[in-house]
């Protein structure tokens, strides 16, 4: 196990895509300490900001408030990153495998354009979770993002596959231009959920305001949600799916695109 303990808060965001099991696993202790990080335009060393313990491991632990540390786990393919504290922007962006777990909060672009692996945030996240970068056609194409708390704007924007599950509320434009995949909203959403979505599923466990371009279809219990419920339960996240507990109202849209997506809103049995 490699443990990095943040000693000095950077005064501007620190770009640290070298903080990844893929980069660190083959390196010696000294080589890890010497890895480059970027403070603005200046190249610095990892040990300018962190104390480093351990070497040669696919398990990386970061202790401290890393809110200003960007790009941790960028493009990682394997291994595990545990952050005991908060994490900064672009955490796990482009990742294809492995696990990232954060005990605190994180900010924007969490898991942006990821294509595999698991990210678990115990606190809140920012906007653009699993989203496509500006100008890019597709957001996340596989993998799972679990957020226990709330999230910001444009969650799952242009996502194509994979699962995003948010325990708390999310802000506007969840599932914006969604092309596939599944978003679970445990605490509902603010405005314009599913705007311009083409395909994909948004599951809301709370009533949400819907665009007029979503048409009500029926109330039912989709069988595929049983698969997702079992999958998510294994990750510590429960979603209801049994008809004895209630049913989902299905809305199809966004008809303004026109799209073939769906929003499923849970209605507990009275």
């Amino acid at each position, binding site marked *: 196990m490699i443990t990095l303990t943040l000693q000095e808060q950077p005064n501007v965001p620190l770009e640290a895509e070298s903080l990844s099991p893929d980069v660190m696993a083959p390196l010696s202790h000294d080589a890890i300490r010497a890895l480059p990080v970027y403070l603005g335009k200046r190249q610095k060393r990892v040990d300018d900001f962190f104390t480093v313990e351990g070497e040669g491991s696919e398990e990386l632990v970061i202790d401290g408030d890393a809110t200003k540390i960007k790009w941790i786990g960028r493009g990682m393919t394997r291994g595990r990153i545990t952050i005991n504290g908060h994490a900064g922007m672009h955490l796990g962006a482009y990742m294809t495998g492995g696990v990232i777990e954060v005990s605190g909060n994180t900010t924007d672009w969490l898991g942006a354009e990821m294509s595999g692996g698991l990210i678990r945030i115990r606190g809140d996240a920012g906007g653009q979770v699993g989203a496509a970068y500006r100008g890019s056609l597709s957001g996340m194409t596989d993998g799972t993002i679990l957020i226990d708390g709330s999230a910001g704007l444009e969650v799952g924007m242009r996502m194509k596959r994979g*699962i995003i599950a948010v325990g708390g509320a999310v802000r506007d434009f969840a599932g914006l231009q969604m092309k596939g995949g*599944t978003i679970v909203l445990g605490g509902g959403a603010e405005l314009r959920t599913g705007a311009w979505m083409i395909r994909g599923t948004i599951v809301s466990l709370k009533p949400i305001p819907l665009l007029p371009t979503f048409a009500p279809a029926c109330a*039912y219990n989709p*069988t*595929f949600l*049983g698969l997702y*419920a079992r999958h998510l339960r294994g990750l510590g996240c429960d979603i209801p799916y049994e008809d004895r507990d209630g049913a989902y109202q299905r809305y199809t849209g966004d008809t303004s695109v026109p799209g*073939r997506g769906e929003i499923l809103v849970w209605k507990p049995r009275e």
Partner: protein
Amino acid sequence: MIVERRGVRIVDTFAEAFGMRAARVLITAQSPDWAGTAARSMTGFATSVIGCKVEAGIEAELASEETPDGRPGISVLLFAFDAEGLTRQLIDRIGQTTLTCPTTACFDGLPRAEERVIVGGALRHFGDRFQSSKFLDGQRFWRIPVMEGEFLVQEAFGVQKAIGGGNFLILGADQRSALAAAEAAVEAMRRVPGVILPFPGGIVRAGSKVGAKKYKNMIASTNDAYCPTLRGRDGVESLIPEGANSVLEIVVDGLDRAAIENALRVGIDAACRPGVVEITAGNYGGKLGKHHFHLHALVGSG
């Protein structure tokens, strides 16, 4: 060497079985009854590849926690000569018997099989482009809209090498004794995982021989050597011993050799009961298949 178990003679012979390809379909439904209804429908008219092009049967009942979607289910095994034939049967049978059955869904039960055949990916066309898919854990699932709601079916099913035609014959003093012994054997064998007994109630009364003596275009015909009514008739070399008057066969298909051996072992043991004269096996002199199950070795290893 004479081997007996509880007074029943076990003939020194082997059951001759042949290579097949198998798939396992997990059918789930709102209740065990509806999963069973779909499973029985899917496995109907699937006793012998000779006439039905597939052999199929119920392997096990599954509790909710054992199925992919958390609903009660049934595990069905299907066997055919090759993957192509099996694919056709999966598409036809799931399409006609499960897609149409209320509340059901179908999942692959051989996720580790390297060979995979497209089933849901063909059935999706029933959705007339209103179908949609979900992709989870590297597998695609098709959601086909139907009048009741949605039919969920996995896109691809695993196919693996398997063995069909494991068997043994129960020679009873009378019909009642032979049937009681066969029923006891079936009850024991159905508890073995990885096997099915494709014939009605797991029992065959019309065992066959390879080809025919009189009709040259027949692939199989009655096993005259074990027909009690033909004993003593010209042209029949009866193999029915003194005191036996009715013969029943148990046929078993399995995912691997060990599964068939286990099934034959417990089945033969259960069939050794009063009223049974002899246990033997369908041995076609090596013309039928390369998998041989020697009864003495099975009984001895129990």
